[in-house]
């Protein structure tokens, strides 16, 4: 038995060594390093001096950081709840369909999700092109003129939010569809025998039973959208990026354009703390689901 135990230990060691090397090198070490250099004035590459909490003090008073924090929150507000609501609506519509029609319609709604972000950018940049964009046909009657959406501040974030919902909603739609499928059909049959209307079926059966999935979608979306960078960066290219700055973009700018590694790490630590709080929440939810 002792040799069995030793064999098990050796096998475990061999199996987890690749994991340990990769996660140690690419996760644990950069995380420790991020926290350490946030207390220094290091450039991107090279050593800096220990300056204690100076970076954190500067950050709290930094107007661009405030803008980034606000824009990130604004983006979260514009995408998380509206996106989840739209996803639920679409899932309800798709779940009514059957057979090949359902597969086709679902594919049409899901397809944007698998596109690379730069492709999404190129497609919508063309659609919103100020002179030749197809969407100017909708924008012109609304605004009274053609609008250069990505250079007009009040249009920018709602525009990116709309595109993000279009792009990432497939994920939530699939989750809702799985949730809807888990609701026993005889509940609906029994209720409609009692003369319940379509609306009553939704408010009394579907909504309460789909609520756990809704919470899951909301938390996943929240964590995802707090990390917004790609779309905002791409659409703001060449414009006044300061006013449309989001948090990850500020990390990028301070590190790679202003060569302030220490300060960038400080911004990263802030993002890290915010996301970690919500992730712990999400993990608790997942565990609750798993426990049942």
């Amino acid at each position: 038995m002792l040799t069995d135990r030793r064999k098990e230990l050796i096998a475990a060691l061999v199996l987890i060594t690749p994991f340990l090397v990769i996660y140690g090198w690419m996760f644990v070490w950069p995380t420790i390093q991020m926290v350490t250099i946030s207390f220094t004035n290091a450039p991107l590459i090279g050593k800096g001096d220990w300056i204690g909490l100076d970076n954190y003090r500067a950050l709290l008073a930094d107007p661009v950081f405030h803008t980034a924090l606000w824009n990130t929150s604004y983006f979260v507000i514009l995408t998380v709840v509206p996106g989840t609501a739209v996803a639920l609506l679409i899932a309800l519509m798709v779940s009514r369909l059957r057979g090949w029609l359902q597969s086709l319609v679902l594919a049409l709604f899901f397809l944007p999700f698998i596109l690379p972000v730069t492709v999404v950018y190129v497609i919508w940049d063309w659609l919103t092109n100020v002179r030749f964009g197809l969407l100017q046909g909708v924008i012109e009657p609304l605004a009274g003129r053609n609008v250069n959406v990505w250079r007009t501040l009040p249009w920018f974030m709602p525009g990116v939010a709309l595109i993000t919902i279009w792009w990432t909603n497939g994920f939530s739609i699939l989750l809702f569809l799985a949730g809807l499928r888990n609701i026993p059909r005889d509940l609906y049959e029994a209720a409609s025998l009692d003369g319940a209307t379509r609306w009553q079926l939704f408010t009394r059966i579907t909504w309460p039973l789909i609520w756990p999935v809704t919470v899951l979608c909301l938390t996943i979306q929240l964590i995802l959208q707090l990390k917004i960078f790609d779309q905002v960066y791409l659409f703001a290219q060449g414009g006044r990026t300061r006013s449309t700055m989001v948090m990850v973009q500020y990390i990028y700018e301070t590190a790679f354009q202003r060569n302030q590694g220490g300060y960038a790490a400080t911004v990263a630590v802030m993002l890290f703390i915010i996301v970690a709080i919500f992730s712990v929440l999400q993990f608790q939810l997942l565990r609750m689901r798993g426990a049942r």
Partner: protein
Amino acid sequence: MTALSAGHPTRRIDLAGVLLTLLTLIAAAIWFLPIYWALVTSLRFDADTVREFSPWPSNPTLQGYIFGITNSNLPVWYLNSTITSVAITVIAVLVSACAGYAISQLRFPGRRLLWWIILASFMIPVPALIVNHFIIIAGVGLLNTHLGIILPMLITPVTVIVYKQFFDSLPREYREAAVMDGASEFQLLFRLFLPMNWGVTTAMAIITFIGAWNSFLWPFLAANNERMMTVTVGIATVQDAFGVAYGRILAGAVLASLPVALAYLLFQRRVTQAIALSTGIKG
């Protein structure tokens, strides 16, 4: 909801159903319109893109595609994307399966610590680590190399969690019987556990591949040399290189999304399964 049509107002409710279906189809068409418009535009001559708004090109052409393939960096970017995405998929899935197996089935000191590392990496926003990833990768001289793009993207804790849960769910008796027969842990993992449901591995591989092909931020930072860029990053730079030539630009975009679109269309069910697995929802 067919039960709704029981009772007397049958006709009225059927009408509502038909209307809802119609509404659904219209919504789906609108949702798909941006992709359709991109496809149509990619088939027009550049000059036509700015003066033709018909739903089908009057003068269809493949010039945008031919230009992209013969006259730009697209083939090189494709190669870079293929190499990095396939490597990330193979390594990440293999490493995750091994770690998931060890945590689920074996007893060894430090097992709990390992589990904590996984949960922590699940909670930490990877974009927060870009600065330090860059410092580390630059430090070992791997900027503008495939390996440099690959390494930081191997952190896929969800895959480890999915494998652990999958192995946890398998009946204990199989393992005990195989151990009695003198099978090694590696035989157990690769001959018994993984083959019990290749669907899990296929699902995780496809979702990892799509994620790797599509990732933007890290490859964008790790490779600024045009010859080392991935398709996803490269496509954002063609606007400058191609000029105002939306036919060409969109043809490039279509080519860039082809592999992931095909992966999805061929393995639709697996993509759904992967999403269900990684969120803990039973489909």
